């Protein structure tokens, strides 16, 4: 139970830091990645609580969480795809000349966690 409590406390701290603002893009990404990993871990820990796992409200929460995760993943992938075009534009002629004169700089891709590349497993989630 202590582990779960620590996880929740840490999650709350991360959320407060994120909402506080003043973070660079890289820091925002790091926090989002950490929250994502911890949330995923929390969902898997539910295996230890069969009553909670069978609870209708919790199942709805899992489905909603899963939905949000996939939506975020799709947005990340879209951002990276657009960024690829942008970064390529900075390297290619003639857009390269325009970009240089307008001061455009290459940007970092959002790192897609390994777990997301593997995709969500219904079996893991529902142990069915």
């Amino acid at each position: 139970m202590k582990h779960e409590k620590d996880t929740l406390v840490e999650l709350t701290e991360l959320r407060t830091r994120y909402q506080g603002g003043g973070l660079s893009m890289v820091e925002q990404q790091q926090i989002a990645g950490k929250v994502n990993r911890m949330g995923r871990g929390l969902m898997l820990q539910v295996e230890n609580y069969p009553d909670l796992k069978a609870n209708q409200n919790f199942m709805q929460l899992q489905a909603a969480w899963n939905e949000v995760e996939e939506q975020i993943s799709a947005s990340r992938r879209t951002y990276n795809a657009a960024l690829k075009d942008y970064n390529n534009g900075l390297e290619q002629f003639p857009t390269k000349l325009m970009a240089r004169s307008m001061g455009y700089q290459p940007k970092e891709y959002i790192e897609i966690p390994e777990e997301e590349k593997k995709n969500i497993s219904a079996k893991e989630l529902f142990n069915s």
Partner: protein
Amino acid sequence: MSEPPPENECRPKESFDSFYEHELLPELKELEVERKNIRSTLIYPTLGLGALALGLIAVMPNMGIQALILTAITGAGLFTWFKTKASMEFRMEFKNRVIRKVVSHCNKEYRYSGFGSINRADFDASGIMTRQPDRYQGDDLVTGESKQSKFSFSEVHSEIYVKDSKGRRRLQTQFKGLFFMADFNKNLKSHTVIVADLAERFLGNMGQQLQKLNFSRADLVQLENVDFEKLYAVYGRDQVEARYILSPKLMERLVNFSVKHELTPSLAFRGTQVYVAIPINKDFFEPRIFSTIMDKELCQEYVRDMELALSLIEELELDKRIWSKAPREEEK
């Protein structure tokens, strides 16, 4: 007790053998008699047409090649008309007695209509074709439900008028094959279409540039799976939603499906539905007229065709509801 087969698979082979022996064969034996009668009925008009053609050649030995071709086309047309007319009742009976059992063999809950088909409105709504067909027909409609997804599929043949080099209008096949539609398991707001990517397959990067200029479709969505990109081109108004639908796993599954079956289906996701058009140039679930229908291999082919369509349920994960899409009204 043996474990039940997955929903997309019909019962195992041992069970098929027994099913064939006990359920199909008695029907096939009776229908075989009818088939032989039809074949005999068709022999006389065929011989008559042949004799007529020979007679014409004999009477008019100087008949030109054009007249010969015309005679042959007329003969073939008349033969097809005779064959269709004579075999219509037989086909109906075959579908009702044999194919209906094949469908039930796969799942007792599935419904079959030999002369029903996917509605033309649904075919058009999918947006897979950029042009509405001028002629649309289909048969062998199968409907069912897997977990929370209702699905249906049928054979569809759509044709469009095109003009040839001399400006003559003629019908050309637009799509022929299996058309499948089902409730999709994710909430969608936009319209995403996935079609076979012939441009990139043959022209590489230049093909990709050409795809971007495809004005009959929405925006091109370029995805990160290289194998998928080689096979398919994705168009949609919402880049995020297209990626939400096409998760890395789904792209992988579609690639595997294409490789395994050597087919490149087109897909569309719109509203609550997913549509899949699998181009296959053959007539599904049809009896033979000029050779025996008491053929186990032929019946296994019917089962394989069913399994091909049903495998889409698994490939598209329609039997999984791990997203927050609300259940259908009647389930609430």
